Every structure is written in structure tokens, then in C-alpha cells.
């Protein structure tokens, strides 16, 4: 809402949370603290605390900003959290959602998980050395648990990755020989279909809550769907998500550790040629997603849009590096 102050926004969100908890628990809660988590342009994440007899209870409330309500994405997030909770994939515990309680807009309330999602802290701080040590193997184990949880994925959507890219391309307002050439290469070199599995599809540093000892929770399930399991491994290894780290798995770990752990826990072999195709797709997907950001705002928003548009060449470079790094390479 234009001109909406932060205090006004917080008051309205506090009312919304109270409405949810009153419907769910039969008593209007006493919300004694509420902070907006940093980051996340596409979704608001509020950490709030309610007073209870004999103590306090902290929870997380997530909803879309008022100007960008995305009902389907929240339904997907709810499906993802539900699967994760049932299948033993580390994730916040889903407590209440718009699938259970109608308050006029999509939302989730989850448990609070400790740790950090800030990639540079995880990559650089000494305290996170133990987490870094096991990061790639932990990712392999978690992805194996997710990809084998087929029995909990009834009703999940199948995403055609090439059609998804073509949808992004249609929104791009300028030409990119690199992205258009990569899309054509992806179409011509597409691997044969294999059984699809539940996949996160945005499994990367930044969407993982990490403590000093390891991965605590997988967050941001709004793009999950049925896919080739290689997609999650390739996305995790994208150069865009290494944050200056030198190693392929989130800038932290080795591809060998990731694949060894994944194959051990899932019983499925990773095909290096197929993985290479998905790595090219991952770089191209992020390139198109960056290039397809809307333009045409005024003022400060236009500044941000222009800055993003001029950074698409970073993604184009990543696409070329992935293409140069033919199947089976470990960089």
C-alpha cells in the first residue's frame, strides 16, 4: 500500500496473525513481539512471539506483500512443507496455513528454526567450519530424502523446464544471443525422460537455514514440483549461488561429496551428461529470470530494475562457462 508506514503494516499483520490464531486455537493471542525478517522481496516473513500461561511461544508468519498476492505459489509452498514434515526432510514445522484457515489471503505459520541463511556468513566465518565440512554430503542426503518421498507428492505439479524457459523468454524486452542460443541448445540436446520425483527446484545457499553444525532446515518451497532429480543437484551447483566461494556445491563443497552422498542415500545413480544439461539449464533459467524482470517503474524502483537489467551479463557469462564445461566436469 502506497504511503503505508512500517508501524501501520506491522499492526495490520499483527491483527491478521491474531485472527488466524483465534480461529485455530479459540482464543485471541497476546502478541508481545513481532519483527520483519530482512531480505525476501517477494514475501514477508514475520517472526512473532505470543504470551502463554507460563511462558512464551515464537512462530513465523509468512504472507505475500499486499501488491503481489500469489495464491498458487503459497499453495505450492504449503504442499512442499507438508511433504518435508512427513518425509523427514528438515524444514520448519507447518503449524497453520490458508489451506486450513481462511482469513482472506494466503499465508503459512511455521515453527521458528535457528541458524542463518546469509551465504557469506556460512562461507567465510570460522564458526561455520563444521557446517562447511559436511555441507555437500548433507545436501546429498537431504535431496535423496526429498526425491524418494514419492508417496507424499500426490497432486504435485509437473514443470516442463524448457516450456518454463520459453515462458520467461517471452517476457524479456531485449535480445540476448547467449540466452537464446542456450535455449536452442537445450532443446536440441534434451535428455530422454526419466521418472519424475518431488523436487524443491530452488535448493541452494540462501534458502537453507544453517547452524554452526550443519543444515537445520530447507526453506522457500514455493517453486517445488515434480522434476528430474538432477535439477536440484544442478541448481545447487549453479555459479550464481556460490557467493564468491570457490567450490561447485554452493561455493563450499565438492561435487564428488555431493554425488557420493546422494547416490548412497537414494540408491540412484547420477548421470554426468544429464547433470551437465541441467547445469546449462540452471544458468539459462536464472539468466532469463533476471532478464524477464519487469521494467517501467518510476523513481527508486526503476533504479533497481535498471541495475538488475545491466547485470544479466553475469548470468550470460555463467551460461557460457557451463557450456564450455562439458558433461562430467567437476568445476
Amino acid at each position, binding site marked *: 500500500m502506497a504511503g503505508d508506514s512500517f508501524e501501520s503494516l506491522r499492526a495490520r499483520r499483527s491483527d491478521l496473525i491474531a485472527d488466524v490464531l483465534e480461529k485455530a486455537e479459540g482464543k485471541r493471542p497476546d502478541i508481545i513481539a513481532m519483527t520483519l525478517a530482512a531480505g525476501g522481496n517477494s514475501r514477508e516473513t514475520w517472526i512473532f512471539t505470543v504470551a502463554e500461561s507460563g511462558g512464551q511461544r515464537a512462530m513465523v508468519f509468512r504472507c505475500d506483500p499486499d501488491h503481489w498476492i500469489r495464491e498458487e505459489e503459497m499453495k505450492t509452498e504449503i504442499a512442499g512443507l507438508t511433504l518435508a514434515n512427513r518425509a523427514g526432510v528438515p524444514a520448519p514445522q507447518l503449524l497453520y496455513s490458508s489451506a486450513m484457515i481462511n482469513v482472506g489471503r494466503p499465508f503459512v505459520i511455521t515453527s521458528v528454526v535457528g541458524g542463518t541463511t546469509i551465504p557469506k556468513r556460512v562461507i567465510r566465518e570460522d564458526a561455520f567450519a563444521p557446517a562447511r565440512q559436511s555441507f555437500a554430503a548433507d545436501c546429498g542426503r537431504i535431496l535423496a530424502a526429498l526425491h524418494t518421498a514419492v508417496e507424499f507428492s500426490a497432486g504435485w505439479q509437473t514443470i516442463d523446464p524448457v516450456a518454463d524457459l520459453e515462458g520467461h523468454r517471452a517476457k524479456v524486452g531485449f535480445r540476448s544471443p547467449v540466452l537464446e542460443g542456450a535455449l536452442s541448445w537445450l532443446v536440441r540436446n534434451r535428455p530422454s525422460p526419466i521418472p519424475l520425483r518431488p523436487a524443491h527446484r530452488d535448493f541452494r545457499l540462501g534458502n537453507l537455514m544453517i547452524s554452526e553444525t550443519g543444515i537445520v532446515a530447507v526453506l522457500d518451497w514455493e517453486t517445488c514440483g515434480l522434476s528430474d532429480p538432477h535439477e536440484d543437484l544442478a541448481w545447487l551447483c549453479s555459479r550464481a549461488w556460490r557467493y564468491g566461494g570457490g567450490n561447485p556445491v554452493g561455493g563450499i563443497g565438492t561435487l564428488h561429496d555431493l554425488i557420493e552422498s546422494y547416490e548412497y542415500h537414494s540408491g540412484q545413480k547420477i548421470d554426468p551428461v544429464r547433470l551437465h544439461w541441467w547445469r546449462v539449464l540452471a544458468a539459462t533459467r536464472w539468466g532469463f529470470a533476471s532478464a524477464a524482470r519487469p521494467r517501467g517503474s518510476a523513481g527508486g524502483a526503476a533504479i533497481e530494475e535498471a541495475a538488475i537489467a545491466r547485470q544479466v551479463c553475469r548470468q550470460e557469462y555463467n551460461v557460457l562457462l557451463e*557450456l564450455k564445461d562439458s558433461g562430467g566436469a567437476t568445476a
Partner: protein
Amino acid sequence: MTRDRGIAEPPPAAELVALVAAFLLRDVVPVISDAKLRYRVRAAENLLRLAQREMTCDGDLVRDENGYLITGQMQQAFGTLDRLSDQLGDGTLDIASADVLPLLERYVIEKLRIAAPDAAPPDVPENRKG
């Protein structure tokens, strides 16, 4: 009105842009308390630095007839970025082929030098080929 005899010419456009960028960073950003506005002013300062680099770049990029940045070699071979994009998009050219990929790599590196110099590889002779 007295003239400053130490300045022979008015500052050129790139210098004007650099002056405004420096003013934003040194004088404006420190007094902004609103985090979002501060972020956007920093972004504006970065865009001005980018524009300054584009104005003064000594690389191989030129503007084609449609206004796209393109390397001289690409212009010689394909004329416009649109034509090259069409041929890559319809499969006439293979992006992964040994004659196309280095051409595109040179082009993207030149763009990185302007838009994201931290992400550009070192300016070594082999990166100047192609």
C-alpha cells in the same frame, strides 16, 4: 565574475557522472536513515559508475544500428545483434561450437567490464581474442 583559469574546458560527460556518483556516496548516503532509500541511492550511485565506465571504455564494444552493444567482430560477421540472436535461436548457429562460443565469450566479457568488473576475468591477451 571571475574564471578559474586552472580549468581549460568544462568537465566532460563522464566526469560529470563521476562527480554526481561521488556526491551521492560521500554526502547523501551517510545522512539517509531509511534503509530502503539508502539502498536505492547506493544502487543509483552504482548505475552512475556503470554509465561512466561505458562512456570511457576502451574495449571492443560498439552500438549496432538498433542500439545494442556488440563487438566489432560480431558486427563484421553478423551486422546486428538481432541477426546473430535469430541465427542462434533457430539453430542455424550452435552456441557450443568452437567458432561461436569464443565470439560470445569475448562479447560478454566486454559487457562485464562495464557492468560488473568484479566478475570479469583478468584482462589477459587470450581474452582479447575472438
